[in-house]
């Protein structure tokens, strides 16, 4: 029996008091325990940013990589060992800025991993610059006259690219966020969980006071998660009401790894690593004559 406590680490997070990352950390632990996944059965690949330090603050296999590149590292890990559960956890600068191209390709591959984006809509670790999901007009050190770039619509992009699981959560609704991550862990294929992460230091305008009165649960409405058009419309609902929950979900689309001939014999790293047999050497050399 796996419990939340199995994921506890003695390392103290370096996050600010009130940071949404605490809720994300707790929700991940709850979801993993709920799914019966032990720390050694999971690899958490992260990018660079406040939130990407998360594997340091829980007991889990982690790979803290470089900015924007968590997805290809995680994809390689999944292809080498699809017997393990692979999670990517990274921020909006990492996932929707530098790593946005990788996300499109991860989606079209339907590679089997959970992609959690800590979307605080600002750069925290580098001290408050505007991010790919910041509002137009946001004044920051790199946009003193107000940001001109329009915000990336991550859920819309994911649906358009053919994602098979698209969800949004909010740490202010912790059990719901844990449930969402659990659903993503159960999904066979690429699962995006965009998390509205309050940054109480650099983006007070998008903190708890902003989200609390606005968020509502899609699954408490008549929303049909298999209806792509409805999902698309909900993905762009933003303002007085902000939906959270599963926007789109379709099961049965084959994952990339399930279609690679070599992987039909089991995870790559569990297949024997040995010298070529004499008959293999003979065949390889003979084809060159």
């Amino acid at each position, binding site marked *: 029996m796996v419990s939340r406590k199995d994921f506890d680490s003695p*390392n103290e997070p370096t996050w600010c008091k009130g940071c949404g990352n605490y809720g994300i950390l707790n929700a991940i632990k709850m979801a993993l325990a709920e799914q019966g996944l*032990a*720390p*050694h*059965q999971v*690899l958490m*690949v992260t990018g*660079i940013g406040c939130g990407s*330090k998360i*594997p*340091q603050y829980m*007991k*889990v*296999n*982690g*790979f*803290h*990589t*470089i900015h924007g*590149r968590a997805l*290809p*590292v*995680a*994809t*390689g*890990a*999944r*292809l*080498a*060992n699809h*017997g*393990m559960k692979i999670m990517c956890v990274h921020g909006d600068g990492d996932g929707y800025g530098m790593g946005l*191209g*990788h996300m499109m*390709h991860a989606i079209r591959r339907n590679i089997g991993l959970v992609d959690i984006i800590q979307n605080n809509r600002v750069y925290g670790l580098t001290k408050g610059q505007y991010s790919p999901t910041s509002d137009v007009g946001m004044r920051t050190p790199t946009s003193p006259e107000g940001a001109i770039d329009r915000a990336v619509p991550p859920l819309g992009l994911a649906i358009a690219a053919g994602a098979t699981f698209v969800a949004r959560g909010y740490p202010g609704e912790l059990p719901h966020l844990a449930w969402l991550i659990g659903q993503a862990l159960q999904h066979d294929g690429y699962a995006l969980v965009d998390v509205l992460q309050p940054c109480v230091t650099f983006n007070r305008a998008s903190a708890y006071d902003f989200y609390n009165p606005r968020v509502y649960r899609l699954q408490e409405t008549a929303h049909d998660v298999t209806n792509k058009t409805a999902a698309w419309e909900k993905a762009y609902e933003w303002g007085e009401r902000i939906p959270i929950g599963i926007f789109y979900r379709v099961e049965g689309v084959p994952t990339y790894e399930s279609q*690679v*001939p*070599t*992987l039909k*014999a089991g995870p*790559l*790293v569990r*297949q024997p*690593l*040995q*010298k*070529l047999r004499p008959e*293999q*050497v003979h065949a*390889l*050399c003979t084809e*060159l*004559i």
Partner: protein
Amino acid sequence: MTVNNMTIRIGGAAGNGVESSGAGFCQALGRAGLHVFGLPDYYSRIRGGHNFYSIRISDRPLYSHAEPVHLLLALTAETIPRHRDKVVEGGAIVYDLKQVREPPSAVPGVQFLPLPLSDMAKETAGTELARNTVVLGVAAGLTGLDLSPMESVIRQNFGRRGQKVVDGNLAAADAGYKAGQKYAGDFPFKLRRNPSAPPRMVVSGTEAFSLGALAGGCRFVSAYPMTPGSPVLHWMAAHAAQYGVVTKHTEDEIAAICMAIGAAHMGARALVPTSGGGFSLMVEALGLAAMSETPVVIYNAQRPGPSTGLATRNAQADLLFMLYASQDEFPRFLLAPGTHEQCFVAGWRAFNLAEKYQTPALVLSDHYLAVATRTLEMGAFDFDAVQIERGELLSPAELDALDEEYLRYRLTPSGVSPRALPGHPKAVYVAESNEHDPAGALDEEIENRIAMVEKRQSKLIGMVEEMSGPARYGPAEAETTFVCWGSTYGPLREAVDLLNAEQPGRANMLHFSDLWPLPLEPVTAALASARQRIAVEVNATAQLATLLRSQTGIQMDGAILKYDGRPFTPEYILARVRTDRRASKSLPLDR
């Protein structure tokens, strides 16, 4: 009459099948028991332009192409002016009457053979596309080479396109053969089948490296197509399902190396083939591999740059870039095989080095070595010598027995920490890109930083023990010692032979294939004993010479440098030696 010592060159436009027919003819000559060195020369375009394929043929093993051409096969008019100066006295130029409207001006001592190649192709194979088969038939007829090895290659290579195509090409070859025979009496360069020769492989550097990597347990290959690196991905993809390899054509080179790092972290032997431009994109992740101590192998088949440069041409100008790429410092291996045999060894050895020292191993090839084909004896690749050494990799049983906290980056005298693959309950850890303590936890303190830098750097002590000094070719004592690396081995070796044939003791050469870390003792000893040292490199700044001077204090006395996008030839080296005995004209080190 000269027997079994000539170069045949077939030239045409992209789309004329120059490369495939050149490669097929190499195969046929190999089956005829002859040695070949085949080299395609092509532009970065799909149609048009001017491509050619040179096939040097001999009774003895060849290490290089050569400049003199004995038989030029021109599928286009452009082929003649481009290569006529290379055709030797007694040689011949065969051309297609349909392509060459104006009779070419004469070349003294060279006979021109205008033939209706297009019409012959159309009549026999039903398509003018078979002109290349016709003209190779002409070559066989002129040289007196038995047609049967060529027929066996036609049957094999066209077999999947159906019997009609096979029969058409056989008829095309036969028609060409008969036409060639008519002129054979005036053509002094002959090819004679050697029926007693054992079967031999015809191998490119790409194939040699790929075979070595597969033999060494390469199980994951991720790459983005870039000439001339991508043929390794093609070879691996073609063999993946049968030999248990996963290949991934990625969205870009950053994804390629990151996927390899992810796969290597989980325990798969992972390879990233690329060229210099792709490697440029990988540099940040190279540092990630070093910092997280993840073993990956990167293969760079160099081409001239900077930027896009010359996509289908040759250079050896990435040595110092590969050596110093990434911010800050860390140990890495840099291997530069010089021959096809060395490509095979580098293929498996790089994985052992990367895993034993948990750091990146970089292999430098180049366009010339990647595409050139040579005949090799069936036993040329020593598969028995292949070892799969994974270094300090903890087995599941060892992890089961672990009775203390697992420290991924444990401080050890060798700098190498016993490595656990993710998935074991007793070894749950974080691989880190940030500076970290032995457990992998973030740590910015001074003491830890010093300890970790020294841990990583201390791997060099063991790493350098793995490296060999330069290999000498030629007499122990020589007037001039040429110093080279990588693919320059072949042309320089032949140049050394030619010089010593004229004047015994004139030259020898030192070839470096283990470029980093440099084993200073044998390197210094080899360089110090030379009377006159001349660097020979395909770059403009003598990068190996710079490296050797920085590491040993020993300066070259001169350099023969080439940066025209083409590989050295033995003749080019000889000409440079003769026109400038000290070969110091282009030597920046002398200033």
